[in-house]
């Protein structure tokens, strides 16, 4: 009864207020140039804040440099919105950016769960979200403003499997994930493809922040598997690697992009030696193309760039490029819808790779890189496909 009343009230009130859509009125700076904002949504607090901060710093650096170059007819500003990496904070975080009408493009959401919880809102607002979330199912959910700036996990999981089956000829693989949405998604891909290749699979979930990895490592050792796949973040991969070394598991080990971070080698020390790492990303610290970026980043934040810092930097520049192309500051039509259209059709050469997108927002192109930890550093072995065909 009451809910019916509520419903009536609601209908009435919506009719009264109408809908106040943004009509692209950009704010203007003191020098008369318009101001456009690039938003970032990701975990700035909570468990995964380290990754969020990596990305945020990349975005901030790109914004800062874009303004500093002085060749733009507009100002770029940065707008942060923290979702703590969790879906429940995501709608509010997204809405905050959507409500700020000068935000015309977004880097993020960083995580798949958060992307799912806020995708409907961004789609409604027509605000393009250039996301690093790599869960394969995302483009199928029908978010029209979602584009992915990295190859999805099908590609990555596939690359791991290809390398194991074709290069190392493994018979039995132990697949471990951290029970996060990210890890589980990757493990599913890997399991499916391994089984298709006729390889025996043992699957296990070891929740992130497990206080002691010894038991899990012992289980790996007893399984008799001749290779291990770990899908999770470096912060959990490191103690796991230590315990694997302690129990004496010396078979090939491969880990996903969540582990691809210099901190993995710092945390795990000797135990990281010999681990293989796949990533859609290039290591900004070693790649020649990102050398300048890495130096700037270090000066700015007193720390080397981390996972996805460079990709976020690229994604930000991608959006700025499109604003420029739309004629931002020269009376061009820089509304969200226009930016969305432009980004979806973009073909942009960033520091890390070439960016272009399929119709459903999926990243077009491939390129999973394989690296190895050698002498305490992550060294690039090369593109998985080329490695396998060469071997």
């Amino acid at each position, binding site marked *: 009864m009451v809910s019916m009343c509520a419903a009536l009230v609601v209908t009435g009130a919506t009719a009264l207020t109408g809908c106040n859509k943004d009509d692209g009125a950009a704010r203007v700076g003191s020098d008369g140039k318009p101001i456009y904002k690039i938003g970032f949504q990701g975990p700035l607090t909570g468990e995964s804040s380290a990754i969020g901060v990596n990305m945020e710093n990349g975005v901030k650096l790109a914004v800062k440099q874009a303004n500093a170059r002085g060749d733009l007819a507009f100002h770029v500003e940065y707008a942060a919105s923290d979702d703590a990496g969790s879906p429940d904070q995501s709608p509010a975080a997204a809405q905050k950016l959507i409500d700020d009408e000068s935000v015309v493009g977004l880097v993020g959401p960083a995580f798949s769960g958060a992307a799912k919880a806020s995708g409907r809102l961004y789609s409604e607002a027509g605000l393009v979200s250039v996301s690093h979330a790599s869960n394969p199912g995302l483009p199928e959910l029908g978010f029209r403003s979602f584009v992915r700036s990295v190859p999805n996990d099908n590609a990555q999981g596939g690359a791991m499997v290809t390398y194991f089956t074709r290069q190392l000829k493994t018979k039995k693989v132990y697949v471990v994930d951290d029970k996060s949405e990210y890890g589980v998604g990757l493990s599913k891909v890997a399991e499916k493809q391994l089984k298709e290749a006729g390889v025996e699979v043992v699957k296990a979930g070891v929740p992130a*922040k497990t*206080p*002691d990895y010894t*038991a899990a490592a*012992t289980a790996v050792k007893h399984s008799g598997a001749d290779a291990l796949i770990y899908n999770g973040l470096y*912060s959990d991969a490191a103690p796991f690697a*230590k315990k694997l070394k302690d129990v004496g598991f010396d078979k090939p080990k491969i880990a996903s992009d969540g582990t691809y971070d210099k901190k993995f080698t710092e945390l795990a020390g000797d135990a990281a030696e010999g681990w293989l790492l796949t990533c859609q990303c290039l290591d900004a610290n070693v790649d020649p193309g990102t050398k300048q970026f890495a130096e700037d980043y270090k000066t700015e934040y007193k720390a080397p760039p981390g996972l996805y810092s460079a990709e976020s930097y690229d994604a930000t520049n991608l959006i700025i490029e499109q604003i420029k192309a739309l004629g931002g500051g020269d009376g061009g039509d820089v509304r969200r819808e226009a930016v969305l259209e432009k980004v979806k059709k973009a073909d942009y050469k960033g520091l890390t790779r070439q960016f272009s997108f399929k119709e459903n927002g999926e990243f077009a192109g491939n390129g999973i890189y394989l690296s190895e930890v050698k002498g305490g550093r992550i060294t690039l072995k090369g593109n998985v496909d080329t490695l396998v065909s060469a071997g």
Partner: protein
Amino acid sequence: MTLLEFRDYLVPGLALGALYSVIAIGYTLVYGVLKLINFAHSEVFMLGGFGALIVLTEVAPGHPSGLVSVLLVLLGLVVSGLVGAGTAFGLEKVAYRPLRKRNAPALIFLISAIGASFFLYNLAGKLFGRDPKAMPALFDNGVLFHVLGAPVDVVKLLLIVAALAMIVGLDLLVRRTKLGSAIRAVAQDPEAAGLMGVDIDRIVSRTFVIGGVLGGIAGFLFGLNSQVSFTMGFIPGITAFAAAVLGGIGNLRGAMLGGMLLGLVETYNVPLFGEEWRYVAAFAVLVLVLMFRPTGILGAKLGRTA
């Protein structure tokens, strides 16, 4: 699971159990004297880990061995114990004593403790950075010897030995010293103890400090076995609290027993049901035990059994 496999989980299980025991004692001690759950004990543990981490990062050379290793470990133990003690002392002084003075109900303590816990771990995250840190290498973690064929490495041995030493030391302290009998007196009947001339404030404060030493050292040991981060207190804290309840909260030996039991249950759960059910196994055991023994395995009195 073959017998061979069964064997290999024993040492890790005992080591984890020893760690839980030491943390659980911190909960149980405070519960014994104040009848309140010191929810912020997990942050004492966390800060103990950070204390040792900071000092050791400053002093540890690249690849120490031999006597240097031993000294470094001792240094870590001392520093983490001191930091833990200091944190617990401050915690009592700021978050609990004012409440005690006005005779606040237990729930108020709980919320104050939760607030203190939030404050401390987020402050640590802010000050020291929010990504995990590894303890500097203090020794080469190789297998030392085998027990019935099961390998025992340095970290696990250190965990078990240090925990046992602390437990035995604490048991002696509580049973043999004047401070110990004062603690027991306060645990049994604070009013009567007060009338007999025991300075309750001082005893409560010292109880916190003792629990803090244990908690801080546990943080260091935990960090050695895995790594240090600002959120590292939460899970071991909850588990150790469960262990204290399992054994009978307020009961020292109960806390040790409960800790050991949960450590073994969690470890053996891995080959039996899979790692992802770790806490389900732990809590299922807890609920089952409490159904049949509503005050835990050994019952709930610090004064009586310790």
